C-alpha cells in the first residue's frame, strides 16, 4: 500500500479514526496499530509478512536474553551476549544478504572469475526483494545493538516491539527510527494534541505535493534524458538536476508523509531531511540529507570501526568504508557502490582540505554580512554540483552510461536549447519558493510562517493543492521502495 494510492486514502482515516476511538486503552491502540501495520505491509505481498515476523521474533527474544545476562559481568556472560548479538546480526543481515545481495555477489564472482579466464555458470535466485527489508533490518539491528550496549532496556512486551518494527508509517522507506526514541512512545499513552495533529496534516500534504507534483512530474523528463544516448551536455545537466530534485522530493516526500501520519497518532519520528541542497560541504550534506541513515551508519558502523579516534588515515579509511557500505545499502549494483565510494571520497577530500575541522566549519554560519552570505551561496552552488555528479552515478544504469553522460557534460557537446529549462522550472520552482521561505523563516511548515499573513498562507496552500490535485503526474512507485 503506497502513500499516494487510493487505498491508503481510505486506510489512513479509518486507522486514525479507530485509533482515537480507542484512546482509553494504549494496549488496544497498539494491537490495532500492529494489525493495521501488517495489513499495510501485506497489501504488497502477504508472504513477506513471515520475514517481518521472523525478524521481530528473533530480535525480541535475543534482546530479552541479552538484557537478562547484563548482570553477569564475567567473561562467560560477555561471550554469551556476543553470541546472542551475533544471532541477531546473522538473522537480519542473512535475510538482507539473501534477498538483496545473493544475485549481485554471484554475478560479480562469475565476472571476476571470467576476467581471469575461468568460465563459471553462476546460480541465480529467482526471488523478489521484499519491500522495505533494508529499512526494517537496520531498525531491528539498532534495537539489539542498543540493548547489547546497555543503552536501553528491551521493549516491555512482544506486541510493543512488533509494533516498533512494523509501525506502518515508516516501515517500508523510513525514517530508520531508533528503538530508544520510538519504543518509549509506543509504550506510553498518547494524548490528542491539536497542534501536533495539524502539523501532521501539513506534513502529509507537503509530502504528497513533493511526491506527486514534483517527483512524479520530473520522472518522465529525467527518464527521457537518461535514455537518450544523444542528449547534449546541456540536456544531461538538466537531466541530472531534474533527478536531484526528483529523488529528493520522492524520498523526503515519503518521509514527510510518514512523519505526518505518525503525528496524527501522537508519535514523533525523527526529521529525515533538512534542506540538503543548501549544504556547504559534504559533511554538512550528510547532516541534512537522509539523516536517519547517516546517523545510523555513524553510530553502528563508523564509530565501532574506530571513527576518528585512531589517527588520520584510519579516520579516512573508516569514512570511506562507511560510505561504501552506505552505497551498497541502497542497492545491489556496482553503480551504488561507486556512488558510495564517491561520497566517501568527497568526505575525505573535504576533511583533508579543512584539516579535520569539517564539523566546526559549517556550524559558524551565523554571520550575515553580504560577503559571508555571498561566500555561503557560492559554497552551496559548488556543493550542489558535487552532489549532482554523485546523482549521475546513482541514477545511471552502467559505468559506461555514466561515463558517456559525464563526457558530454564536461565537453558541453550538442545544442543548448534554453526552452528545456521550462519543465524544470515549472515543477521545481514552487518547491524552491516554499522551501526558501521556510528556510529563511526557520520553520518547517508553511502555516507556521507568522511573518506572512494568514490569508496569504491559506492562498499558498490553495495553489499548492491545485498543482498537486490537478497537475500531479500519474502515480509512480516511491524510488526508495527498491532499496
Amino acid at each position: 500500500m503506497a502513500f499516494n494510492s487510493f487505498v491508503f486514502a481510505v486506510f489512513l482515516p479509518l486507522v486514525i479514526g479507530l485509533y482515537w476511538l480507542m484512546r482509553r486503552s494504549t494496549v488496544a491502540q497498539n494491537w490495532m496499530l500492529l494489525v493495521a501495520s501488517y495489513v499495510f505491509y501485506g497489501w504488497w505481498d502477504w508472504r513477506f509478512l513471515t520475514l517481518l515476523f521472523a525478524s521481530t521474533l528473533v530480535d525480541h527474544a535475543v534482546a530479552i536474553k541479552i538484557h537478562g545476562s547484563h548482570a553477569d559481568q564475567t567473561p562467560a556472560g560477555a561471550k554469551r551476549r556476543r553470541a546472542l548479538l551475533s544471532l541477531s546480526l546473522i538473522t537480519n543481515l542473512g535475510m538482507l544478504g539473501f534477498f538483496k545481495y545473493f544475485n549481485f555477489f554471484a554475478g560479480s564472482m562469475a565476472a571476476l572469475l571470467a576476467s581471469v579466464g575461468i568460465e563459471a555458470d553462476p546460480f541465480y535466485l529467482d526471488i523478489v526483494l521484499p519491500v522495505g527489508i533494508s529499512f526494517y533490518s537496520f531498525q531491528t539491528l539498532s534495537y539489539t545493538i542498543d540493548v547489547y550496549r546497555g543503552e536501553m532496556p528491551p521493549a516491555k512486551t512482544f506486541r510493543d516491539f512488533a509494533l516498533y518494527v512494523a509501525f506502518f508509517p515508516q516501515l517500508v522507506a523510513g525514517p530508520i527510527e531508533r528503538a530508544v526514541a520510538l519504543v518509549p512512545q509506543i509504550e506510553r499513552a498518547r494524548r490528542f494534541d491539536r497542534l501536533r495533529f495539524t502539523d501532521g496534516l501539513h506534513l502529509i500534504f507537503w509530502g504528497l505535493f513533493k511526491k506527486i507534483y514534483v517527483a512524479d512530474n520530473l520522472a518522465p523528463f529525467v527518464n527521457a534524458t537518461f535514455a537518450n544516448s544523444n542528449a547534449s551536455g546541456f540536456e544531461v545537466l538538466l537531466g541530472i538536476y531534474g533527478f536531484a530534485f526528483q529523488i529528493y522530493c520522492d524520498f523526503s516526500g515519503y518521509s514527510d508523509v510518514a512523519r505526518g501520519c505518525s503525528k496524527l497518532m501522537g508519535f514523533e519520528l525523527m526529521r529525515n531531511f533538512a534542506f540538503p541542497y543548501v549544504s556547504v560541504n559534504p559533511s554538512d550534506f550528510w547532516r541534512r540529507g537522509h539523516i536517519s541513515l547517516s546517523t545510523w551508519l555513524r553510530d553502528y558502523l563508523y564509530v565501532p570501526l574506530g571513527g576518528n579516534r585512531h589517527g588520520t588515515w584510519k579516520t579516512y579509511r573508516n569514512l570511506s568504508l562507511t560510505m561504501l557500505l552506505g552505497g551498497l545499502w541502497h542497492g545491489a549494483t556496482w553503480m551504488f557502490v561507486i556512488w558510495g565510494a564517491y561520497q566517501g571520497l568527497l568526505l575525505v577530500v573535504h576533511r583533508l582540505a579543512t584539516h579535520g575541522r569539517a564539523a566546526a566549519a559549517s556550524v559558524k554560519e551565523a554571520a550575515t554580512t553580504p560577503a559571508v552570505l555571498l561566500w555561503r551561496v557560492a559554497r552551496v552552488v559548488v556543493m550542489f554540483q558535487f552532489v549532482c555528479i554523485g546523482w549521475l552515478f546513482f541514477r545511471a544504469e552502467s559505468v559506461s552510461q555514466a561515463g558517456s553522460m559525464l563526457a558530454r557534460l564536461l565537453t558541453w557537446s550538442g545544442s543548448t536549447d534554453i526552452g528545456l529549462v521550462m519543465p524544470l522550472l515549472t515543477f521545481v520552482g514552487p518547491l524552491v519558493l516554499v522551501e526558501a521561505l521556510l528556510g529563511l523563516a526557520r520553520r518547517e511548515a508553511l502555516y507556521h510562517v507568522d511573518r506572512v499573513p494568514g490569508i496569504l498562507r491559506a492562498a499558498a496552500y490553495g495553489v499548492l493543492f491545485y498543482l498537486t490535485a490537478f497537475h500531479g503526474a500519474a502515480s509512480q512507485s516511491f524510488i526508495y521502495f527498491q532499496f
Partner: protein
Amino acid sequence: MTSSSLDRSVFSLLRDWTLWIAAFVFAVEASARIDDRLNWGAPLVGTYSNETLVTRDSVIIRGRPGAQYEKWKMNSLGFRGPETTVAPAPGITRIAVLGASETFGLHESEGREYPARLQQVLDSLAPGRYEIVNVGLPGMSPSAMLPYVEHAVRPLAPSMVIVYPSPSFFLETVPPPERFVLPRLRTTPEPVVGVPTLRSVAKAKNVIKRVVPSGLQVAVREWGLARTRAAQPADWIWQQVPPDRVALFERQMRDVVVAIKGIGATPLLVTHTNRMLTRGAPGTALDHQQLLGVTALYYPRASESVMVGIDSAANDVLRRLGAEHEAPVAEGMGGVPSDSLHFADYAHFTDRGADTMARMLAQRILTLGPQ
C-alpha cells in the same frame, strides 16, 4: 476566561477560519482559471465549458463561430475544423459529415477525429478532389438534424452528406420529441458573465474519476442505478428494444434523408458501431461490464440486451432507408474493431478507431465516385 472574552475568541476563530477557507478556495479557483488561460486561451472570467462551443438562433442549435473550449475549436462558420468558405471551391466535391459527439470528436487528439482523418486520407488517395466539413455537434439527435440540415448545412451546398446517427438517444427515459424543440442553453445568446460556476469543481470530477479505482466506480454506479430502478414498476425496464422508439428513429431518419436530398446532396448513411460487438468473447467480460455500467446510467430503462440491441435495430432501419431512398450505406458496424484500442468508451473513438473509420469511409466514397 469570562463569557464575553470566550465569545470574542470563538468569533475571531470563526472569522479567521472563514477567511482562510475563502482564500484557499479563491486560490484554487484562480489557479484553475489561470491554468485554462495559459493552456487554452480561456477567458479568466465568465463561463468556460463545452457549452460555449454552441449557440442557438431562432431555429437551431449551431456551432458558435470562433469558439474554443480546450482542444475543441470552431471555425468562423461555426464548424469544427479548418477555415473554409460558405460556398465550395470550384471543382472540389464538398462532403459534410453529420452526427453527434462521435463525429464532432471527443477523446481523439486534436485533428484526429474521423472527419479530419477522412480529409487527410482522401487527400492522400485523391489529392485536391474532396473537401470534408465536419458539421457534427455534440448531442445532435436525429430530431435536431432535420432543421440543422435545412439551416446550417444547406448554405454549404455539399454534394454529399455523411450521416452517422447515434441510436442511443432513443433509449433515454424521456423519448426524443417528434419534432425538434430548441432547448435552453446556459450560454446563449452570449456566455453568461457572473454566474459563479467553479471551474475547479469540474476539474475535480475528472481527477476523482482518474483516482478512484474503476471497480469502485462501477459498484457505486450500479448501486445508484439499482436504486433508480427499484423505485419503478417491474415493466419499466425494457427487456427488448422498444418498437415505438425504433419507429420514431425511422420516421426522423427518413425526414433527414429526404431533407438531405432536398438540398441537392447525396446522403451516405453510416451504420452505428460500438465496443460491445465482441460481447461474450473470452477476456472481454470485465471490460463490457464496466462499459455497460457506465452506459446504463444514462439509459436506466434499458436492460443490457437493449443497450446492445439498439444499434442493430437502428442499423436495420438505416439499411432499409438506404434501399428505399437509393441512398448508399456504409457499414460502420463491423468496420471498426470492437476493442479498447479503437474505442475510448462505449461508442467514441480513439485516434486509432477514428483512423479506421476514416479509411473505411474513404474507400466507400471513392467507390461511389464523383457525386
